[in-house]
């Protein structure tokens, strides 16, 4: 009986913590989107998950050249698409920047100790314009 209550309490606490953070507390092989972003409701990303985990930077780098130099924007590989799908919203419905602490992009990059330069220029939330 006691064990059951503790487990429920723990589960409740965990869920609460996740909602409060609306982000990712850690990173690793089981890395996945948490919070209320569109990505949480999808089976997989624009490529199979292992491929995306390993190669998203190469896909983005290729796409940036194709977009800037050739004007191709009809693609699932655009950074704007990543942000649109992976951005969490706070309880007021305001998007939380993907590079802020604990959020999808920044938490994994912090874990992997890889600098995240995209957002020196690119918007961290969908701005609609």
């Amino acid at each position: 009986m006691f064990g059951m209550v503790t487990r429920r309490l723990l589960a409740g606490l965990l869920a609460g913590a996740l909602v409060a953070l609306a982000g990712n507390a850690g990173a690793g092989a089981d890395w996945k989107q948490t919070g209320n972003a569109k990505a949480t409701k999808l089976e997989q990303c624009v490529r199979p998950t292992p491929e995306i985990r390993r190669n998203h930077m190469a896909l983005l780098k290729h796409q940036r050249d194709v977009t800037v130099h050739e004007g191709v924007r009809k693609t699932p590989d655009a950074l704007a698409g990543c942000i649109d799908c992976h951005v969490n919203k706070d309880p007021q419905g305001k998007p939380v920047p993907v590079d802020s602490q604990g959020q999808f992009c920044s938490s994994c990059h912090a874990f992997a100790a890889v600098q995240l330069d995209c957002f020196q220029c690119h918007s961290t939330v969908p701005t609609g314009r």
Partner: protein
Amino acid sequence: MNTEPTDAGRREFIGKAAAATAVAVAPGVLLHAAAEAAPRGEPVTSKVRWGMLIDTTKCADGCRACVDACDKENGLDLQTRPEGEDAGKWNQQRAIWIRKVKVRDNLTGRVTGLPVMCQHCEIPPCVDVCPTGASFRRADGIVMVDRHICIGCRYCMMACPYKARSFIHEAVEEKLTHAPRGKGCVESCNFCVHRLDNGRTTTACQDACAKDGHAAIVFGDLRDPGSPVAKALAQHQSNQIRPELKLNTGVRYHGL
């Protein structure tokens, strides 16, 4: 660094130097398809050359509709003066893609007002001097900066005869999804490339000018004889600024 305001002499020189030039619109073979409002899936080609005709006789004195619309469209209105920065200095340094310029003919005293932005040269000096290939001319005639490879050396700003480029000195706090910009890169007018790539066929400055009732800016495909800009160029007198440089600019002026 010289922080004096742009000297009037240079402006007058530019104005006077603009002599009548025959408009060489390449004979269009293929008409570009009617605009479908969808993102572009195929690479741009040289079958299209984007260009602009600005009727200086319709450009109203004191009107800044095009400048403001450009600022809003490209997130330039989100720039803020750094704390403690001198206002005059800031006005010289902040990024501006369109400048409203007045030119005066010293002989007759005639004053003409016109917006000057990147002229989208066919042979762009900024591209010539760029050491990294960041400054480039897209197949459809748009001269732009690939900010991913721009190192911020500003050679292009020195090379540009039109003073069309700006440098971003400060970190950009607020960015737009469609117009990414950040510290350490050079930038300039790109004919609202995000609009064109998403199937729209107008620029923000053109829309604003038309909305204010002046309609001094006509934009479109120079290679399509049926496009409004090609028709207007075929009908009306027009000049390039500094035609003697033989850059074959994509932006032409009527009544200059």
